[in-house]
């Protein structure tokens, strides 16, 4: 077909569609003209005027039928009829407002929820927004033998891979740092990345202002440059384009601003303020390259961009080859070490590593939402069915008047399409606000590495497809009932006959059972997760967090280079805090329990090794001051805490927790035994320390950390406390103050004391310990809240479902019940009958749900803390309360039976 013809056809169709009245009038006039002409000719052949007119009309034939044929020829008939059906269906939906509102809300919630989670899923688990994201990879070191997975990387590996892995285009090494940035107004704590020059090329990012640093900047002396992130530039410099070339003081060192990186650069890192060129000293490089553990000392992230012609597999093979070359050349010590820890290199795209981190929880949410949508669909189908039965007389009238089955099919289909389209728009609206809400409230806590989420194209498509499916399901459902055969009934006959057919009854109760099965699964999963979360939160932390205030600072290296200076600051701070009224005790620690990830490393225990051979699992370390245990109320079980000699750096005492003592000294004789902290069997046993005390195990690796049976998850790790000596160069200063919180504002007083010592220090984590701990599980809390809401939605929807079905059934059976009552049946008997039936439906649903949940349970085990996936108590409580709720939901409509008057009931037919 040529283009002109096509356009002509389209414009004809459009004219028929939009100018239907005009075309109608044209046709009338054309017919009129034809008949007049014929009459004119007939008159000329000798007929009288009246006779000619009559004859002309007769010759033309049935005008209306003719017009119908012409309209068929216009090709718009289907469209105009459909439009009429749409109008009709909107009108009738508007009339039954209760029904429409319920359906729209049900579908909207189901669809909107699914779209929201799909958007989150694709933002979190989808490919990152970089150019050619499948070429951006991270390279990890794994040590399954030591229970350490996804450990990062280091300078020697960076240098080796950059020079020798052919499959990689660019390689970059980064290290996250926290600093004090002095802006015009005050000191703020800033987070940045130390990055090597190719970092931006790895991610394919261009500056929005100025330029990025180059290889020449990554040399000591040339590295006094900084690239700001877009967020930092916008908040702190009001998007001032003249920032390039100006100096910013970071940890008391002025750095020149080279440029501004786009928001994309922050995507993977969450909260990020700047990038700095990473210049390390030649000595450091030399040391790390030669020391035997250099390639396994992991402190920095290694990123790379694959060559477009290469695959991850190739890169991994080349890396493995380099590692084998390295091992061939290394000493026996290194070979042993690697073998013991089962070292392996991992190359993963960013997407793969995200899926490993968040996949389970998010897929669980998505599954739950899909179930909710299914439950909602069943409800809508059931409601539509009831509505369809009410409209049966109308349908029958249309059949009698000559409507074909196709017309009916179209009518019903359009009705359900209108419904699901409404649901679609409601769903989009809800998804839009849902994502808005997610962005605003939970993103920072829950998914810090995502940055932001937009409504996803894929999610919209998903909703569209789902609503079409919903429409078809509802339509097919109503159709199967209405075209099920009984349409030949006379117009006046009662509709109850159809609804009582066996097929329909089975269908309805089957649907209710299905719905209940879905609800049971959801509720069981939700109950298990909530129970697990509750247990994790309410487990004794071993800490007395009341009356404890925290403040943290990172001391800039440039000012606090010597350990004396750091120690001096601690002493002065302690003194000034002690003079504050209400303060009881003050302590310092490298890490805060459950708030910061503790140092992790090996430990050697000679007494244990003599009996059991070596143990290669790692332990956690924290360096604390004398009063740490007192401030946090950690009970001392045996021995003492640090003496002054230890704290002066003269003694060799360490304190261990009960977990440590239990693992290495099962006979309760830990006290006085020797250990080598931070030492593996490959080092000579020189720096021995003596255990001077055993303290209660505290939850130090997160409140929701998984219990003590698993070796690989950090929650369980034994903890060794090392004394904070004046020689310590730890610049992460966590101040803990126990005092009377009610007397005055201790939080801001602690802040004031630190600032009076050095006003350039940016203070963070400045709050009561209790609040900080509570906030630390906000992400889990948000997740649990969502799961609970899902469970609630499912329960509500299935309640509506069972209530609707039952009350419909009772209305249908009114006649029969009336007769039974009239011939002497008791109300009690009827009630029992109806309840028995609904309990049977419920029972089948519950049994199916339990069965499915039982099978699904295994997949849940990883997400549960101290709760078995088949926990009988959780099952019992959930199921019995579900049953109780269902029973009361069926009792309400069932009680209507008692109000049936036999005489009235018999009048129905």
């Amino acid at each position: 077909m040529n283009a002109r013809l096509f356009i002509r056809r389209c414009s004809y169709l459009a004219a028929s569609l939009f100018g239907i009245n005009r075309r109608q009038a044209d046709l009338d006039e054309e017919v009129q003209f034809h008949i007049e002409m014929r009459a004119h000719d007939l008159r000329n052949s000798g007929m009288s005027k009246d006779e000619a007119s009559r004859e002309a009309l007769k010759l033309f034939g049935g005008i209306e039928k003719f017009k119908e044929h012409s309209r068929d020829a216009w090709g718009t008939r289907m469209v105009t009829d459909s439009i009429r059906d749409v109008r009709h269906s909107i009108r009738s939906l508007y009339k039954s407002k209760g029904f429409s509102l319920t359906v729209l809300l049900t579908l909207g919630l189901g669809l909107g929820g699914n779209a929201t989670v799909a958007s989150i899923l694709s933002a979190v688990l989808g490919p990152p927004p970089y150019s050619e994201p499948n070429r951006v990879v991270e390279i990890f070191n794994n040590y399954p033998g030591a229970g350490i997975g996804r450990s990062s990387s280091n300078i020697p590996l960076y240098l080796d891979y950059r020079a020798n892995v052919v499959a990689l285009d660019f390689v970059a090494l980064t290290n996250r740092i926290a600093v004090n940035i002095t802006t015009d107004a005050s000191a703020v704590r800033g987070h940045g990345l130390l990055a090597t020059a190719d970092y931006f090329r790895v991610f394919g990012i261009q500056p929005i202002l100025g330029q990025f640093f180059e290889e020449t900047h990554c040399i000591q002396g040339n590295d006094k440059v900084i690239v700001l992130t877009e967020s930092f530039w916008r908040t702190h410099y009001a998007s001032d384009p003249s920032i390039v070339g100006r100096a910013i003081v970071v940890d008391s060192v002025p750095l020149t601003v080279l440029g501004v990186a786009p928001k994309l650069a922050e995507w993977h890192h969450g909260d990020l303020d700047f990038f700095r060129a990473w210049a390390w000293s030649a000595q450091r490089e030399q040391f790390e390259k030669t020391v035997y553990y250099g390639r396994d000392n992991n402190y920095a992230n290694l990123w790379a961009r694959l060559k477009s012609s290469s695959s991850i597999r190739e890169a991994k093979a080349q890396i493995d080859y380099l590692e084998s070359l390295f091992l061939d050349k290394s000493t026996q010590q290194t070979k042993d070490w690697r073998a013991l820890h089962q070292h392996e290199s991992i190359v993963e795209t960013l997407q793969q590593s995200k899926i490993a981190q968040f996949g389970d929880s998010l897929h669980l949410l998505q599954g739950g939402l899909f179930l909710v949508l299914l439950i909602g669909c069943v409800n809508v189908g059931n409601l539509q069915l009831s509505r369809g039965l009410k409209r049966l007389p109308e349908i029958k009238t249309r059949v009698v008047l000559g409507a074909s089955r196709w017309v009916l099919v179209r009518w019903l289909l359009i009705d359900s399409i209108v419904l699901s389209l409404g649901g679609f728009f409601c769903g989009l609206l809800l998804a839009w606000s849902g994502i808005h809400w997610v962005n605003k409230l939970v993103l920072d806590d829950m998914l810090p590495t995502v940055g932001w989420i937009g409504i996803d194209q894929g999610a919209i498509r998903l909703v569209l497809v789902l609503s079409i499916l919903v429409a078809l399901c509802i339509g097919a459902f109503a159709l199967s009932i209405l075209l099920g055969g009984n349409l030949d009934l006379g117009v006046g006959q009662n509709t109850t006959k159809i609804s009582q057919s066996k097929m329909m009854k089975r269908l309805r109760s089957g649907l209710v059972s299905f719905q209940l099965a879905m609800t049971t699964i959801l509720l069981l999963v939700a109950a298990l997760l909530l129970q697990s979360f509750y247990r994790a939160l309410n487990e004794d932390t071993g800490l007395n967090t009341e009356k404890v205030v925290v403040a943290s600072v990172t001391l800039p290296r440039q000012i606090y280079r010597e350990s004396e200076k750091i120690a001096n600051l601690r002493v002065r701070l302690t003194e000034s805090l002690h003079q504050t009224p209400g303060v009881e005790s003050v302590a310092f620690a490298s890490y805060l329990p459950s708030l910061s990830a503790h140092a992790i490393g090996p430990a050697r225990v000679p007494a244990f090794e003599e009996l059991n051979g070596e143990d290669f699992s790692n332990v956690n370390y924290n360096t604390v001051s004398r009063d740490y245990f007192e401030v946090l109320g950690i009970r001392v079980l045996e021995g003492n805490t640090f003496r002054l000699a230890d704290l002066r750096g003269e003694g060799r005492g360490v304190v261990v927790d009960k977990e440590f003592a239990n693992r290495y000294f099962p006979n309760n004789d830990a006290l006085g035994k020797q250990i080598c902290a931070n030492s593996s069997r490959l080092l000579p046993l020189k720096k021995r320390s003596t255990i001077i005390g055993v303290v209660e195990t505290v939850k130090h690796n997160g409140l929701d950390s998984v219990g003590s049976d698993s070796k690989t998850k950090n929650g369980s790790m034994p903890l060794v406390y090392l004394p904070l000596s004046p020689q310590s160069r730890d610049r992460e200063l966590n101040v803990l103050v126990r005092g009377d919180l009610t007397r005055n504002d201790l939080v801001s007083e602690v802040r004031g004391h630190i600032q009076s010592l050095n006003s350039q220090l940016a203070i963070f984590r400045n709050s009561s310990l209790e609040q900080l701990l509570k906030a630390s599980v906000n992400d889990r809390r948000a997740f649990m809240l969502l799961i609970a809401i899902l469970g609630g939605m499912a329960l509500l929807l299935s309640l509506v479902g069972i209530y609707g079905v039952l009350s419909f059934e009772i209305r249908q059976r009114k006649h029969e019940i009336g007769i039974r009552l009239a011939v002497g049946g008791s109300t009690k008997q009827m009630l029992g009958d109806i309840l028995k039936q609904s309990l049977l439906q419920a029972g089948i649903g519950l049994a199916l749900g339990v069965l499915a949940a039982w099978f699904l349970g295994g997949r849940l085990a990883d997400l549960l803390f101290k709760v078995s996936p088949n926990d009988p108590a959780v099952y019992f409580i959930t199921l019995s309360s579900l049953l109780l709720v269902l029973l009361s939901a069926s009792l309400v409509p069932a009680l209507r039976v008692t109000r049936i008057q036999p005489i009235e009931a018999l009048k129905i037919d």
Partner: protein
Amino acid sequence: MSKDKKDLLQGTLDLLVMRILKAGSRHGYDIVKRIELLSEDTIRVGEGSLYPSLHRLEKRGYVQAHWAQSETGRRAKFYNLTPEGKSMVQEKESYWLEFTSAVNLVLKNA
């Protein structure tokens, strides 16, 4: 079977209508009379099929319509062939001639 017959008739009517319009634009009644005249009153075209045929041809883009003054002075709807219609009528005509001569051959020699 009856469906085939109808199609055949419909196709034939379309051909006749288009062939008549090849000579210039005409209104519906004129076309009817012209066919009757040319076929020496053998073919009677029902009005009930002529107008749907015209509208169908118009929808397909082979025929265009416009309103104009008729010979009696009354406004009438005139139809004429589009360029596509002209090439279509050529095609259909030669096909028809070939087809009928083939049928005639069979009838004569059978």
